[in-house]
């Protein structure tokens, strides 16, 4: 299909077009009420755990740091509620295990304003100061990977960054939180982008948006023109670019391919090409938090799916139990829900949950609830042996051969998969499983294989 994709002007080769199902694209972001109790896990990000700096029984104010760390690859957490620390210990986590969390009970009469933050002027701050300020907000990548943002934006001494790529693709079906943020918080996004450019030393920023969101492109362009009316940005130019819609466009490799036509070398980071990629939700939140001197205590979550009566994008405070979120969004009979029906994140890469007590964390971009009928249709599918139709090879954005990899995985030839068939390049987008007519769990097998290879390497 290389030829076809060339004439269509598609951004990157292969990939899939799942039905977009963006039910909530036209709805304003609404605030979800504060729950009585939140549970803030210490592990909400990639990297080291911070340690709690509050004790049980202590009163906390919304926005106050409750966990800190001196490690570089770690972020502090802030109290999402004004209330009392009720418990510090193990609570259910999204990966099925119980993880250390801080439970805060809300004060009934509190206004729940962020009283902790002090607004400040960062307009003259150096890049290093901005990085420090980002670290203090506890910001992680809000797109789902939850990598600490200050670490992502800090450039090693020997490297030079010229371009900041802002990822507004949101290629996952159903999710619309980034879309709504780009429309409703375009100004915050521009401010955040400028901070990020200062922190990285980039001289241009390019916001890549999939072309199924023309309203976001128009709004952003207008907002940039408005912000520039007082004079050009001292940080450099900000462009907005529509890229053709295709899954997984939101992968940084695919987005860079779409914008610059350059393949990131395998195993490399965007910094090898002089680029840093960040998500629009992250930068919009930074644009709001940095001048206000606040910490990250809430995020926008898309609550959607066929089982939700009032789907929408909600501003949810971190630590809100899933049960509360689903109740508010109008999922009938929350107590009767089956854990298999609820997915955190998008349908292509999100994960099913083990318990409805799981809290919303910094990396949760969406909550999907499917009805039993939809589940039954998928679960009733017969699994066949691989018929070698080649659909997976045609859809793998990384140009791997999932058909052969799948057969090797079934035979547990993990070393061969890694050495000869480039298993390590797989970023688990799920395109192969999505298209497989034989219903073979390809990407699931690859996850297992990668995990086993990682364990063997240790």
């Amino acid at each position, binding site marked *: 299909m290389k030829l076809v994709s060339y004439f269509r002007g598609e*951004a990157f080769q292969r990939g*899939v077009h*799942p*039905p977009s199902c963006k039910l909530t694209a036209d709805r304003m972001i609404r605030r979800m009420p504060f729950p009585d109790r939140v549970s803030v896990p210490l592990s909400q990000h990639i990297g080291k755990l911070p340690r709690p700096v509050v004790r049980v029984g202590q009163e906390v104010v919304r926005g106050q740091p409750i966990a800190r760390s001196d490690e570089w690859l770690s972020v502090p957490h802030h109290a999402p509620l004004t209330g009392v620390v009720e418990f510090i210990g193990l609570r259910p986590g999204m990966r099925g295990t119980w993880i250390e969390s801080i439970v805060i009970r809300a004060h009934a009469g509190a206004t729940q304003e962020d009283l902790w933050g002090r607004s400040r002027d960062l307009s003259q701050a150096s890049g290093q100061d901005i990085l420090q300020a980002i670290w203090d907000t506890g910001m992680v990548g809000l797109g789902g990977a939850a990598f600490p943002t200050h670490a992502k934006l800090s450039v090693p001494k020997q490297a030079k960054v*010229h371009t900041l790529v802002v990822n507004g693709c949101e290629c996952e*079906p159903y999710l619309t939180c980034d879309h709504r943020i780009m429309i409703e918080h375009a100004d915050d996004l521009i401010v955040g982008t400028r901070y990020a450019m200062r922190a990285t030393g980039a*001289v241009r920023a*390019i916001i890549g948006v999939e072309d199924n969101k023309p309203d976001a492109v128009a709004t952003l362009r207008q907002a940039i023109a408005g912000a520039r009316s007082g004079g050009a940005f001292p*940080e*450099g130019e900000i462009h907005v*670019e*529509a*890229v053709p819609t295709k899954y997984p466009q939101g992968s940084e*490799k695919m987005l860079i*391919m*779409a*914008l*610059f*036509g*350059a*393949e*990131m*070398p*395998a*195993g490399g980071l965007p910094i090898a090409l002089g680029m840093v990629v960040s998500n629009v939700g992250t930068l919009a939140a930074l644009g709001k938090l940095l001048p206000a001197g606040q910490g990250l205590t809430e995020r926008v979550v898309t609550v959607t799916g066929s089982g939700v009566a009032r789907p929408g994008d909600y501003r949810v405070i971190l630590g809100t139990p899933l049960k509360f979120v689903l109740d508010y969004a109008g999922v009938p009979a929350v*107590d009767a829900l*089956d*854990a*298999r029906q609820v997915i955190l*994140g998008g*349908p*292509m*890469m999100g*994960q*099913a*949950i*083990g*318990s409805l007590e799981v809290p919303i964390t910094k990396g949760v971009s969406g909550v999907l609830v499917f009805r039993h009928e939809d589940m039954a249709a*998928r679960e009733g*599918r017969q699994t*066949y*042996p*691989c*018929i*070698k*139709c*080649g*659909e997976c*090879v045609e859809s793998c*954005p990384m*140009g791997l*051969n999932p*058909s*052969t990899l799948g057969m090797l995985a079934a035979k547990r030839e993990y070393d061969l998969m890694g050495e000869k068939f480039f298993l390590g*390049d797989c970023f*688990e987008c799920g395109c192969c499983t*999505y*298209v497989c*007519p034989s219903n073979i769990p390809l*990407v699931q097998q690859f996850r297992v294989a990668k995990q086993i290879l990682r364990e063997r390497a240790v």
Partner: protein
Amino acid sequence: MNQPLIEIRSAPHVQAAKTVETIMRHVVYSLLPICAFYVFQYGVSALASILVVTAACLLTERFFVGTGTQAGRLSDYSAVITGLLLALTLPPGFPLWMGAVAGIVAIALGKALFGGIGFNVFNPALVGRAFVQAAFPTAIATYTPSFLPGRYTEFIPSTLAWPLMIPADAAAWLKTKNLDALAGATPLAKWKFDGVLANADELLTSLSGNMAVGPAPALILVCGAYLAARRFMDWRIPLAILGSAALTAWLLFAYDATRYPNPFFMLFSGGLILGAVYMATDMATSPVTPKGMWVYGALIGLLTVVIRYYSGLPEGVMYAILIANAASPLIEKITQPVPFGRGVLDRARKRASYPLNPGYISREEASAVTPKKRFLPKKPKK
């Protein structure tokens, strides 16, 4: 949650609608017009042949699936495809019991032996056909002309031969119809043994009477185009086969036009179109890699022409496809795709919107630069 269910699914949670059943069902749908045309050409004998061969395939498949020696299900339609294709490759007057043997062998030796759907190395229909070609060389070379009068009421006598009995002589039967034995020769056999070339339009439509030809290549191409457009079949393989066969035939034709027929005759005579569109594209026996599909198709086209020209057989599609089936794992091995970021870098630089490195290094210059190329056609072009 009342019951803590410990069953956690792993992403992706959505799947495309295409399943093995839908692929196979659409292949069957696309074969139905071709079968109807075949019945239109040869009447009740062709109908009986199609029904008996398909029934033999289905019953054999049912036996092996039922005993658990074979993967897949009866309802996946793959045995129906094998049966229909096998019937279309047999002569219309082929004795029904031999057709049943072909069907049983196709599924038992061609498919069940390897483990069922997806595991077979060779196209099952061609395995069955190769078996009967070796077992019943006379019967499989006995063709009768199409569009005989009375074909809807009268069987070709050889069709109804008793099992293990020598079928009735077709030449004698043709004499009663005032046709000589040569009328029962296929266009390829006529060219090979008598040097007579059929006309292009006759070959393409199969509509002129008294020719021993299969269903119209034009119809097969239309049905194949439907499959390719719905992506139930890969378009590369037929294209590679026809392209390579045409190229080889054209080179030879250009070398010596008196000795070799024109490429058009090569393409549309015999079973090349049916083989290219339906047999060679069998998913399990063709490579999965896009490059491998081109190599595989080119090999089939080349072998077909070589076998037709230089061997004692008039037809070579079957052996060409079987040889390429055997070669397909090797082809796949040498045509593995190059992963993203490991091949020649910067393949698509020309159509990108932005230069990889900005042409400026200071922020003051930055605002002077605007991107040149855009992805979306609706945006104004510079």
